[in-house]
């Protein structure tokens, strides 16, 4: 059982890592003017919910399987994802709004956020990997 949980978490985490990298690449494309704000934001907004769900599933899974430490580690990030999604003003086109993204340094803060998440997911990845191996050995 343990093994299944961590294998799943590991896969999920890989997906999240890829997603973070994708965010970073897309945002930096925008920074360099390779793509325009409209297409950048529509690309990114598509993945906001999958990211939110993917992360929430792992978090819940950890809670269910009673891995408290990992759960608590994941909780703030998951909360932030949900908060960010809920707090989008009604007139905006999503978390990433093409008309706002160049204003008030939003692009930079999005970039920073994506970087932090990438680091966090990498950390989680090794943690899951370690836990999975541990679980396999214990089996």
């Amino acid at each position, binding site marked *: 059982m343990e093994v299944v949980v961590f294998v799943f978490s590991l896969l999920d985490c890989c997906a999240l890592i890829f997603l973070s990298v994708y965010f970073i690449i897309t945002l930096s494309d*925008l*920074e360099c*003017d390779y793509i*325009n*704000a*409209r297409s950048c934001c529509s690309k990114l907004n598509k993945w906001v919910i999958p990211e939110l769900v993917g992360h929430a599933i792992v978090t819940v899974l950890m809670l269910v399987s009673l891995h408290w430490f990992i759960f608590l580690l994941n909780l703030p990030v998951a909360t932030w994802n949900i908060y960010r999604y809920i707090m989008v*003003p*009604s*007139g*905006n*086109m999503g978390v990433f709004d*093409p*008309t706002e*993204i*160049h*204003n*008030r*340094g939003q*692009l930079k803060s999005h970039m920073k956020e994506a970087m932090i998440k990438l680091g966090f997911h990498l950390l989680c990845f090794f943690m899951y990997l370690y836990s999975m191996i541990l679980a396999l050995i214990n089996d």
Partner: protein
Amino acid sequence: MQVPSGYGLHPQNYIAPSGHCAQGPGKMTSLPLDSQCGDYYSGLYTVPTQNVVTPNTASQHPGAQQMYGRVLPAPHVVGSTLGSFPGAVSSASHLHTSASVNHYNSPAMDSANSSVASQGFPSTCGHYAVSTVSNAYPRVSYPSLPAGDPYGQQMFTSQSALPVRPMRDHSFSGQNTAVGHPPPLPPPPSQQYHQQQNLSGYSTLSWSASGLPSAQDNLIRNHTGSLATANSNPTNPVADSLSCSVMQNVQPPASSPVVSTMLSGASSTRTPPPASYPAEPVASAPQPSELVQQKGMQYGDYVNNQASSAPTPLSSTSDDEEEEEEDEEAGVDSSSTTSSASPVPNSYDALEGGSYPDMLSSSASSPAPDPAPEPDAVPAPAAAVPQPSKAPKPFGYGYPALQPGYQNAAAPPSSGAPPTGPAYSGFQQCAQQYPGLNQLSTGLGGLSLQSSPQPESLRPVNLTQERNVLPMTPVWAPVPNLNLELRKLNCSPDSFRCTLTNIPQTQALLNKAKLPLGLLLHPFRDLTQLPVITSNTIVRCRSCRTYINPFVSFIDQRRWKCNLCYRVNDVPEEFMYNPLTRSYGEPHKRPEVQNSTVEFIASSDYMLRPPQPAVYLFVLDVSHNAVEAGYLTILCQSLLENLDKLPGDSRTRIGFMTFDSTIHFYNLQEGLSQPQMLIVSDIDDVFLPIPDSLLVNLYESKELIKDLLNALPTMFTNTRETHSALGPALQAAFKLMSPTGGRVSVFQTQLPSLGAGLLQSREDPNQRSSTKVVQHLGPATDFYKKLALDCSGQQTAVDLFLLSSQYSDLASLACMSKYSAGCVYYYPSFHYTHNPSQAEKLQKDLKRYLTRKIGFEAVMRIRCTKGLSMHTFHGNFFVRSTDLLSLANINPDAGFAVQLSIEESLTDTSLVCFQTALLYTSSKGERRIRVHTLCLPVVSSLPDVYAGVDVQAAICLLANMAVDRSVSSSLSDARDALVNAVVDSLSAYGSAVSSLQHSALIAPSSLKLFPLYVLALLKQKAFRTGTSTRLDDRVYAMCQIKCQPLVHLMKMIHPNLYRIDRLTDEGAIHVNDRVVPQPPLQKLSAEKLTREGAFLMDCGSVFYIWVGKSCDNNFIEDVLGYPNFASIPQKMTHLPELNTLSSERARSFITWLRDNRPLSPILHVVKDESPAKTEFFQHLIEDRTEAAFSYYEFLLHVQRQICK
């Protein structure tokens, strides 16, 4: 000798010629001369390719080219002669005068009488081909003329009282006068002879050229600003100066006291120079008539410059340009540009001829230059003269030229007109010796007369003690502390302003100053004069794509250093050619390098597709509510009246849609007997009933369109449909427009209630005067934003006219315009009979809206010196990438703001530059780039930063930031931020700079109005709390703050109050033969109102005349036309035209105020006891209201906050 006489005759014809010219393209060509020319220049230029500046039609081109070839030789000849006979100043001057005369004549010749012209020429010239000359003229002049209308531009406009049109008139008059001048001409012949002899074959050409060019120049200028502009840039400082002087003369009174002073100075200076310099062409000529002549001269110079410039550039470097703005365009018009170019050359020739002599003469008369340069306007000619002489060796030049400028210089900064200023002479040197300049500027600080701004702007003002902070005259933009040459080259503050005219060296210093740093732009302003450059090669930096501008430095003759990224670039071969002297190696004299505001005709590299035609679509609400309000009558009437004035060319297309709960299309295809109405009732899945014929050619279907407009107002009179399917109608409009792009004008009268984009009422009337939370400032749905972005992607802008009596959720609806670069008009409680003032306002707004200039598929890019970065943009547009603003449409009433931050220390530079480039398609289908460049000094000390604060710009930027804050956070946050801006900046100043006691509220003189303006902002509809404000009114005020240019915004924030019952001619200015009194500004406080007086409040979009209870009956009778106070009606919106002195004064003053702005404001006469007076009194922002501080209380509040 004979020639002059012939010219004299012609002048009469002059006015007529414009028409003729247009006709005349075919004539051009006698080629013999060309062949000569070709030989002469063959090595250097390829004549045909050039491009001329003028926007003109293609027809002229062929001739132009020919002309060009011919013309060129002439100038050369002149040059040669000059070189050979340096002493012959007098001759040169003669040429000039003659040239001017000729110019006038020339049009006439063109128009009809080639024969006459030919006769005159032959006699003088002998064997030279006369015909060529005549041909050349017509073309040149013509092209220039057409260009003028749309693009007339001048830095003066804003300041000057005169609206664009008046300006033109003036110019015309000037021409006429010039014509009168002929007499002076006669003298030249001797000189001419000289030259001719020398030249031999060429001499004739030269002659004609000299005379013609000036004439052409004159014509061009007057007729069309654009041409003049193009020409003006290049070499002739003189021309510029002249133009300036002229302008000033025309307008000066209006603008400001400063201007007037300048003029006087100029005039005074002027007189001396002529005496001293026989050589000067202009000066030498008729001094009394100086102005006129000057114009002529200037024009001539400009033209010449352009012409010369045009030819050279031809060759190569097109490739570079593509990148930036080009995304959008696909280029079509290369051919057109070339054609346009051809006409220009002609003008150039003429110009060159005119200018050339000047140049020569100037060189010859060495002594004159120094004194001459100084007087700004006037001196220009003189200044120009000196320069030309040196021109050949610009590099060596440097300092000496500068000195003269300094001595005289003091006056210029005042009006902001400087860009065109005479100072150019110095300029070349400046550019070349860039590093040197800085030193100079610092050195100058002490020397310069005016530049005492520092002491003045830093003079500590004790705000709580000083009761009259508001000056008596309107506040002008501070002048950057640059040396004179740069100052004169700098961009007009009307187009481009920075909140800090002294840029702090580091972000830390900026943070210490606690002042906002940003730019305020009005890039597409109506100008009366603008250099237009047609050139195959638009010279730009290879790495940052900056356009070459007056602030670059030339390292040597072949290389220039970008002033934004410091990359060293090669000077393209074509750019090396100096049109004025006809020699290589003087790139710094080209118009691009002589003017900080220029317009390029772009090549096909700047297009992604062929330039679109002008396309206008009107989407009209015809629900019961709309019919009840009755706006259709006014709209259709306005459209019928202005149908022929809609900007566009023969391709212009127009379409109409109406909607209630269904959508109605109108088939206007040519050939139908009457308009066909097609109804689409499926609003969930909108489709176009027929693929074409909904947007039809305006000229082909004009009758049908008129039929429709006549029928529309009555078509829906009995409708019972109350629903409004705005969303689906917009989707349909988008589908209709997406193949071409263009402008959609939406008229809406209620909350959209059907289909996509339907809205609910969100306003709670009980919360209108809440002091706590104001909600719903942001949009309720993203439908309109998405639609706007879609439209923006298809180059379609949506303009919204909201005429509603109830809440209509402007916050949501405005999104359709905000992000598609449209504009929003709001008419609360609109009803065509119950609310006549709103109806009148709509009428006037529509007139302006329909006829104003428009640019399509535009993009704007703002660049700044390395180390600075832009992080937030304000205005109506979509930011497509970091610094690229996508503007589906651009109109002359749109303003923008940009916030800046300092990312890297600017220690290694003493100047920073900002450049905006606006690429657009004109309504004539030309791709154009308008470039503004602003140069500012960098300072390292806090006092210097404070000394350079532009308080109006800072307030406007703060207002923009506060709007953002209100929407993204909350209104109270925004209000706090505004107050904190005052508290922080004043306390930072107090602790860092002022050594005075802290108990008093001390501000530097440059910031003394800051608290007053912030208080005014807090009492603005957008930000006020505690006073009942409807949500839509508030949101509309916010929209206006975001998209209005600074000049209009300042009037809205802080209206001007004048006492008008005792107008006198003291200090009056003269505009268009009218005397305009200049009453002093009153502060906005009831204490200034007396019951015995009458006051005029200028709020930008509305005027109030408040009449006191015991106002003098003479005033009421003479001005208002009623016997006494009691008989004045409650609603009075016009001043009667009475034949009394006081009535004339009042009306000329009000007319003058009106002419200064694009929208004609509505006038309300408010009686002291009428209920409407609350409207008036709410603008008295220095007074206490139940919910807000008085000015004094606000100061005390700020002081308390500082002391905390």
